């Protein structure tokens, strides 16, 4: 094994120059695909992520439909060229688990009862993978769902914290993830600070965990601003371009965004 690099210096500066509680650069664009009902493209550090939403639509296969509510199905997929060694196409155990917990996270915020027997199908593609792909995916999916006009209690912000060189830090980069001591991916409802996705492995004291959670909640609010901004830019364009023909549909979307704001 290669030697562990020094991930954080005595002044708390990280390999890429970030401070402990600093996120990597994050940009989001909403409505990037033509065919999907909603979509979003996200770059976060070196992650490149595309999310597409279809629905609410008739649930297939039918026996999976729920008589009283919609099913949210998120499929997380890594493109074969998104990582150093080619990933074989198709779901593996890791992506199956991420798809499951991400679907559960969004089921907590979508108003499922409005769409009995339906499915809301979300496909999120990691086109290029840096660390933190699952929270990047989750953050993009939230915007794509809003772009599709799916009514939600709130957007969700995905964010991770971890520990490197004994220090609790936010949003691990690739080397930090490989050589660090803990990683805690989260999905947070920004306004209420509720936790809807939480995974962890590594080694943390209860105190370190609590410290990290505080950083993550603060970061979730930052991320939320970037998400809302993406949606506002999208609908600023939309209003001009689409007002006439897509009026009714757009109104619903606007409302969703309003609620968030």
């Amino acid at each position, binding site marked *: 094994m290669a030697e562990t690099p020094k991930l954080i210096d005595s002044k708390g500066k990280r390999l890429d120059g970030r401070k402990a509680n600093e996120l990597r650069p994050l940009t989001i664009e909403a409505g990037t695909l033509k065919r999907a009902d909603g979509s979003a493209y996200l770059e976060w550090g070196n992650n490149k992520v595309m999310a597409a939403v279809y629905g609410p639509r008739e649930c297939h296969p039918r026996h999976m439909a729920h008589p009283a509510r919609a099913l949210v199905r998120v499929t997380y997929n890594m493109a074969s060229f998104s990582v150093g060694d080619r990933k074989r196409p198709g779901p593996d155990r*890791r992506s199956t688990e991420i798809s*499951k917990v991400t679907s559960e996270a969004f089921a907590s915020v979508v108003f499922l009862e409005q769409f009995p027997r339906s499915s809301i199908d979300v496909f999120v593609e990691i086109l290029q993978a840096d660390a933190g792909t699952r929270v990047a995916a989750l953050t993009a999916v939230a915007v794509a769902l809003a772009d599709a006009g799916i009514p939600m209690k709130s957007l969700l912000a995905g964010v991770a914290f971890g520990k490197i060189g004994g220090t609790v830090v936010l949003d691990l980069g690739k080397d930090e993830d490989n050589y660090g001591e803990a990683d805690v991916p989260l999905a947070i409802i920004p306004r*209420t600070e509720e*936790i809807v*996705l939480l995974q962890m*492995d590594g*080694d943390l*004291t209860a105190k370190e965990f609590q410290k990290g959670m505080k950083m993550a909640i603060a970061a979730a609010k930052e991320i939320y601003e970037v998400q809302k901004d993406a949606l506002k830019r999208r609908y600023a364009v939309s209003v001009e371009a689409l007002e006439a023909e897509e009026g009714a549909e757009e109104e619903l979307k606007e409302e969703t965004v309003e609620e968030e704001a």
Partner: protein
Amino acid sequence: MVEVVHELTRTHIQRLAEMGKRIDGRDLEEHRPLTVEKGYIESAEGSARVHLGATDLLVGVKMELGSPYADRPESGVLIVVAELRPGASPTFELGPPKPPAIELARVVDRGIRSTDTVDVSKLGIEPGEKVWLLFVDIHILDYEGNLFDAGNYAALAALMNTTIPNATKLGEGKDAPLEVKHQPISVTAAKIGETIFIDPSLEEERIADARLTVVTDEKGHIRAMQKGLTGSFTVDEVNQVVALSQKIGKEIRKTIAEA
């Protein structure tokens, strides 16, 4: 119909909870009786059968010779597989592992791996060519709730019971016990309404809003976590479950060590 029954159960469970009680008579922070039988299967290199209340499962550890991963040529390979066998529940189906089985295997794996319970770097034989593959197979016999904890307990107990078949399978040296360096213990809580229930039974699991599993080590450090289901936790609730996991983990660790 099933929905209606669940709603009635839910109301009943929540009313009891207000009085700090549960339908099977336990306290909210009390786990079900745990029995651990190490060495249940002679054909495995290690094994344990665990009953957690009526949840009944077996873990068999098999050690085979195989190839290492390209990026860790000198290390053995640890593989955790869970099979939700269809005899264990009317809701389990035949076929390749579905997401719940995969999640179970990965959460049990995470607890073992993040603590280096087994030091795989000592399971190499010829670098790049031949290493020990350590299969931890979780086989569910009867499903009455909380497979994450029962699976973790049985996996740990089976590893503590494992013999490296140096003589038997490799033909070099003597069979020797596998060294188990840590004892990660998983404790799972369900949230129903505003109440936290430790070690949810099947009835509780079915109506739970959210689930949180916390794995702690012998120092009380957090080593793995997994939140599930469609509800949410507040930060305070998460911290409460962490504290309970640390406390209950100690008892369970003792029970497994003494089995």
